[in-house]
């Protein structure tokens, strides 16, 4: 039991980060506003979690312009997708 708990990734402790990773895994990319609307979050809250995940290189961001509006698109890195899958597996095992 304790070693399974150790496998749970601390980076995914927050529900918001789980949400971000879930969205990015089933959609190849998502922009800031889409995620904000889906999870019903404030700008600051979402931004801080995105920054944290980007800091440990689980996700990557690309800035671009749509017309005149800046738009930040996020994608998951292979490191992030591996970590997230391991985390889900650990969750699964824990529940069994």
């Amino acid at each position: 039991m304790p070693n399974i708990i150790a496998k749970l990734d601390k980076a995914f402790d927050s529900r918001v980060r789980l949400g971000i990773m879930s969205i990015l895994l089933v959609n190849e990319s998502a922009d800031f506003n889409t995620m904000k609307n889906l999870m019903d979050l404030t700008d600051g809250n979402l931004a801080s979690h995105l920054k944290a995940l980007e800091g440990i290189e689980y996700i990557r961001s690309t800035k671009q312009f749509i017309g005149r509006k800046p738009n930040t698109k996020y994608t998951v890195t292979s490191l992030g997708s591996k970590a997230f899958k391991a985390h889900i597996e650990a969750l699964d095992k824990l529940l069994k």
Partner: protein
Amino acid sequence: MKTNKQTEDIRAIRDMMEKSSKFLSLNGLSIVFAGLFALLGIGYMYLYKEEYIAGYQLYPQMNTNLLLIALAILFLSAVTVSLFCLRKMKTNHIPLINKTLIRAAYNLLVPMIVGGMFGLIFFMKGDLWVTLSVTLIFYGLGLINTSKYTFREIHYLGIIEVVLGLIAAFDPLHGLVYWTLGFGFGHILWGIYLYMRYDFSKKRIS
């Protein structure tokens, strides 16, 4: 205690994956309306049944009349469904232009437009029975196609429409009966089911 949080986590993950990849702003009630409109239109078409049965085809002067009715029903249904969608999207703060809507609409409309043109060509040649069958088949294929991107239940409605379309090709004298079943009752039944499952108890998708 600990496992409770984990169960909730798993549920949140599944929820977010589904919510972000599917267009779920469809309202079952609007589909029921579409079915009712279809029944009205088909009821009107029955008035021309005798001419239709005589030689499997229509007299030229009837063509435009029937076509206008069919297009009006299609338009009315599309507007109703869209308005209900818009309302649901607004209450859920979903932007009008979003990937899930575009993907779902594209996958439905491509087969529908191709099938519609195909049916129209035969209609103009006077072979209404081909049109009746082909519209059902292509509409069904569109539903099957788009069911990956919206409520999964649509898949089975699609299969039923395709089967009805094939039977209609086999049994051309009763084409309108299969239209009644497919476009009328099919939509009403599925609409009621979707409404009961997703809209009536609003908790599932907030």
